[in-house]
């Protein structure tokens, strides 16, 4: 990218900025037209309904839309905009492997390289054979075209067969390298650059090189950049071929890895800040899909581009270096204007080696246990009381995050009315967000809330509730498929209302089941069902396959609230919270009440036995035969079949657990602590 190009880019960037401010000013008036348009835009089957919904919200929406836009603008100045944070690229910013660009061209110098140290040689040649080959071919091809010798059509038609490339290349490149003998074309220059790059790994040396370059460039600044033909860099007295190759090849060994990494880190930071300034709108984030193309997006028009990816990567790095050299106080510059839009995750980028280091260096942990504490496990109630007594930190900031999200509500509703579904992700409990949405906008609409974090949600229960409570279907069918069909039929009927399905933690423990997601996906697919869900688990996307994702048709919104997951974690068996088992005990009581007297007797017999032998360490359940014997003695059952029928019922309600002992005997236990059982027994005797 030459200096002119760079400048224009900056200009256009600042132009964008100012135009944006203009736009926000103008919003207030264009909004009404927008309202009209959004109505015109609708053309779906149930257009009428949507039009109604839009037109109802239209005045509000356009107002809020304006607000939103203003606020987005505001946020982008106030904050690091939560929206950009979700960049997929943050997971893996590709760093061009230092060996890669080298590979092809170093081979061209193979004559020299062969005498170089073998360690480096293997590093260069060990990988990416075919990459190297193809690059070689491309270079050859390029040269064949640019070379002044007129090539015949036939030659061009079969461009760059490897053999031709190989034989043709060294000589031609040699002539190119010998300097400005012929009019320095861009390619030659470029090749020079890339060759010079190839001889040393980018980051480490780049500092020194770019410094020297900037020094040599400093007096008249116009041509900062190697792209332009007559840069001092390319013309500058390059040291002769051989020593250069050697010197640079030796260099990387000298630079310690740590230094290299530091430099790279700083470079990437500088680059980011530069991007944030130059165009803070969209280019600042890259998806993994577009790694190689990103710099193309940024490229100004006058820049000629290499169609070859490798050199693009090189260019990319080149830019970094330049930015490092020409923009020393970049940090200051970056912070002056727009805030950084992209969170820097590069330093923390996960590398595969981390996995192995984690698993190999499993250093011993200390043998301390929680028993050293005065009270190793707090009870749930005590924990809640202690936390409630404490003022929350960052209360104002968290509230601001919530209000920011509130502004998005109309946006969500608009998207939802056009057949999309909303998925909220990000750190913090999103219960409040959906709850606020429900209170503010869905009060008069038909809606249903599903608490996915609850450990007892089942698809059948969900559908039953939906049919009975929401859709007023008396006596719904019992089979899952039939239920789904009933819902579908009910909602397909003309005049059926739109149903808003709010799902907290769509990836909750019980929601991960295939059946559950199948049901939700089927529901979400219906045109009258609008799904607004939140996802919390870091691996939540694994729940959906291609087909389900298409059915869900999600729009993803970053709804980071940083609020505590109080409600969500209260059901989980937390490691540090004492299991009060209030829940288990109360459920036990409920089931117990519905049992026949004989069944109660069997259970009490089993429980008593367990309490009696609580201290016995070898006890691992009551054998079935023993239980049968005792039950017969107490006239509780008359046959083993009857006993088994009772036990099946217990098992279904999770009152007992059966286990096969090593000798094949079935052993029965009550899966509760002895203290709890005795408490239960005592309450039984009372009543």
């Amino acid at each position: 990218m030459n200096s002119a190009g760079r400048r224009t880019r900056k200009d256009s960037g600042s132009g964008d900025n100012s135009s944006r401010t203009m736009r926000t000013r103008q919003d207030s008036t264009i909004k009404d037209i927008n309202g009209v348009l959004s109505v015109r835009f609708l053309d779906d089957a149930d257009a009428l309904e949507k039009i109604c919904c839009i037109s109802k919200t239209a005045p509000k929406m356009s107002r809020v839309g304006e607000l939103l836009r203003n606020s987005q603008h505001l946020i982008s100045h106030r904050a690091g905009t939560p929206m950009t944070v979700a960049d997929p690229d943050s997971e893996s910013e590709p760093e061009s492997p230092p060996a890669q660009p080298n590979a092809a061209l170093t081979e061209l110098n193979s004559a020299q390289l062969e005498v170089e140290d073998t360690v480096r040689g293997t590093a260069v040649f060990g990988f990416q054979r075919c990459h190297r080959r193809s690059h070689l071919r491309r270079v050859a091809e390029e040269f064949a075209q640019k070379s002044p010798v007129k090539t015949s059509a036939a030659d061009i038609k079969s461009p760059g067969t490897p053999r031709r490339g190989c034989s043709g290349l060294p000589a031609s490149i040699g002539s190119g390298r010998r300097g400005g003998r012929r009019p320095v074309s861009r390619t030659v220059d470029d090749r020079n650059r890339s060759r010079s790059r190839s001889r040393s790994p980018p980051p480490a040396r780049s500092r020194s090189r770019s410094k020297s370059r900037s020094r040599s460039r400093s007096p008249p600044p116009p041509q900062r950049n190697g792209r332009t033909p007559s840069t001092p860099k390319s013309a500058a007295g390059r040291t002769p071929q051989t020593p250069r190759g050697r010197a640079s090849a030796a260099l990387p060994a000298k630079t310690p890895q740590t230094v290299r990494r530091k430099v790279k880190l700083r470079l990437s930071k500088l680059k980011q800040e530069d991007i944030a300034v130059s165009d803070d709108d969209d280019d600042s984030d890259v998806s993994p899909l577009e790694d190689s193309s990103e710099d193309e997006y940024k490229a100004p028009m006058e820049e000629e581009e290499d169609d070859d990816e490798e050199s693009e990567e090189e260019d990319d790095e080149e830019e970094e270096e330049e930015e490092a050299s020409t923009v020393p106080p970049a940090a200051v510059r970056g912070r002056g204007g727009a805030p950084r839009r992209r969170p820097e995750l590069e330093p923390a980028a996960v590398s595969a080696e981390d996995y192995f280091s984690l698993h190999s260096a499993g250093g011993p942990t200390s043998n301390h246990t929680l028993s050293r504490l005065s009270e190793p496990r707090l009870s749930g109630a005590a924990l809640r009381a202690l936390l409630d007594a404490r003022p929350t930190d960052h209360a104002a900031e968290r509230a601001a995050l919530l209000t920011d999200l509130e502004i998005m509500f109309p946006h969500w509703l608009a998207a939802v009315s056009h057949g999309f579904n909303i998925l909220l992700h990000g750190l913090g409990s999103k219960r409040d967000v959906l709850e606020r949405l429900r209170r503010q906008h869905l009060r008069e609409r038909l809606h249903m809330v599903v608490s996915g974090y609850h450990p007892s949600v089942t698809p059948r229960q969900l559908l039953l509730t939906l049919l009975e409570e929401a859709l007023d279907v008396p006596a719904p069918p019992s089979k899952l498929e039939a239920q789904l069909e009933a819902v579908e039929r009910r909602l397909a009927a003309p005049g059926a209302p739109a149903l808003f399905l709010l799902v907290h933690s769509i990836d909750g423990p019980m929601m991960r089941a295939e059946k559950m997601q199948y049901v939700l996906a089927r529901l979400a697919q219906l045109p009258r069902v609008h799904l607004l869900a939140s996802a919390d688990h870091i691996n939540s996307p694994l729940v959906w396959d291609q087909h389900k994702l298409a059915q869900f048709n999600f729009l993803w919104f970053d709804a980071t609230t940083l609020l505590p997951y109080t409600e969500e974690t209260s059901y989980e068996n937390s490691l540090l919270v004492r299991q009060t088992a209030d829940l288990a005990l109360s459920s036990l009581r409920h089931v117990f009440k519905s049992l026949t007297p004989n069944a109660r007797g069997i259970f009490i017999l089993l429980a008593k036995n367990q309490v009696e032998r609580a201290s016995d360490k070898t006890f691992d359940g009551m054998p079935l035969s023993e239980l049968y014997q005792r039950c017969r003695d107490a006239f509780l059952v008359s046959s083993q079949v009857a006993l088994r029928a009772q036990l099946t019922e217990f098992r279904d309600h999770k009152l007992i657990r059966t286990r096969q002992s090593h000798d094949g005997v079935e052993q029965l236990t009550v899966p509760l602590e002895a203290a709890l059982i005795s408490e239960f027994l005592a309450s039984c005797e009372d009543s």
Partner: protein
Amino acid sequence: MATSSLTKDFQEEMFNTVFHEMIEYLQGSVDIEEDASIPTATLITGVNMPDHTGVFRSLAERLRAQVTAHVAVLEAASCATVQATVRTMVRQLTAAGEPLSPDVPVVDEDEEDDCLLDVPDQTSRQRRAPATMPALVAHYEAAQETVASPKKGSPRKRARTAPQRRPLVVVWRDLEAFQPRVLQDLVLICSQYRSRLPISFVFGVSTCASAVHRLLPQHVSARLSLHKFHSQLATHCLAEMIDKVLLSPSMPFRLGGRALRLLLDIFLYHDFSVNNFISAYKFCMLSHFLWSPASALCCEPNQLEERVEELTGAQVAGLRALPSVRAYLDDLEQEERHTLQHDGVFKEWVLHMAPKLHSKHEELLVGLRCLFALTKRLPGALLGKQFREAYNLALLHALPERDEYKRTFQLLSMLSRQELTATLEHALEAVSGSGSALSTVLRTQLDRVRAVDDRPTPVSAEESSQQRRLVADTLKQATSRQSLRESLQSMGAARNARLNPYETLRSALLAELDEHLRGLIVQPSKWPFNECVVFDDVSLVRRRLVGAPRSSVQTALADPAKYLQCTCCQLGDAASIRPTMPDLCIVYKLHLECGRLINLFDWMQAFRAVVGASDDDQTIQARFAHCVAELQFLGFIKSTQRKTDHVARLTWGSC
């Protein structure tokens, strides 16, 4: 805007031919009654699963309309056992036959449908005949009779229709998902009934035809007579879609280069789903109209005047501030710019300029189609193999300035006469429908090329002898290889300089063509007012369509200040910890320092050390316990039995 109807039509059309063939095959399948094998149409659908719902729905519709009323579509989800499968199948087959046979003593499905919401479903189920194969046979025979009997028209007509029994078609959606056992049993069962019921199958296979044989052993597949049908490739569908919908002149809305590229990338590297592409396109459209103020002018040309009339002063100012407009204004003369400051004049100017957006796009398309046709035959696929690639390139860059363009003309300038004629014919074909000036240019060019003489200019004897002498001289004079080479090169250049008439014409033609194309292919971002119709907010689209939940969670944990925007938690170094950070972040950061197992007690001590002694021990313990529970909920740690009071880390790396 009839996008959805457009896309629907187009999908119907795409599968027209395949369906047509299949339907013919299935209609013919009734006749082979004596044969025990079941006629089976294997429809290879491709891996774009999300699109299949629509494909099979329209297939079933067509079958019902054209072949038979007895169609059952089976899905793996509802066919876990043979019993369930038979029930689903028979239900669907008989239900569809219902309207044909109102007298059959089976509960009328229509009636049931109506009263389903009032009458308990259970009872209606019981009233229905049992869903078994014998019941199906009985039902089918009854249905056939009722079809045949009321036709008391002319005997000739009756004779023609009577033998035509309606087949029963069972469509297996996504065959690979079924249990092999169920599938085999059902095939065997159906083949038993083949003599009485003209059953035929449609297998929807998404991988390859051999999947059928992988699922069915030989003795089962021997009962089938398989016939293979290929559905349209998803990429073809996409190409058609882009051509018919995105590039259609009736569509005022356009995708920008980067947005289109993202959508294409999602399609090509992610799901191959045309439906998803359409949905993403719809999202772009929605965003454009809802959130871009300039979209006020994005409408049909005939509505434009009205819209411009409605513009308020602020809106005009906004339009004036559009980057493309400003760039255009800056290039104008001072006076003209002054006159345009006036709102009325500006509006007129808008009315003058805005319709050009559409014509410009048309021009761009014509130019591109021509250029694409020219490059198509050239080696190296300079502009890509599909038109969409060329289109995307033209949106992203100023194409005439690019290498690809230059190389195209370089290569064209080496074509022989036959090749050039063929290429020009192709180009002419590509643009002929557009009625643009380019087609006439191409036609005249073609005529000229055909007329020209491409024999080399005869070399006179004198000249050739001179040449020979020259060569001999050089050979003698050459003292080194290098000098020989140089002299040979110069000689070659001298000879090449003399062109024959065809070559002269060729370069002239290409220059002319180049000039025309440069005029046509203008990057949309250069058009004034392009923001009105072009949507290119790629980062928004990416954030919405390509979710990245994990990175948002980890960013918030690693650097909460990015979200909270507080001054107290600014981190100099990514790895550092501030006591002011939210508890969860502190606990998370501490856990990053651990290996696979984490000692809870030590972890808590570290937490205590970071947050300081502001709270009593119990409170700190409570805070810590809550955070651990949250981390567990988020999936960073899990409990483990390997060591007392330890938890296992589930992530790795330092983020």
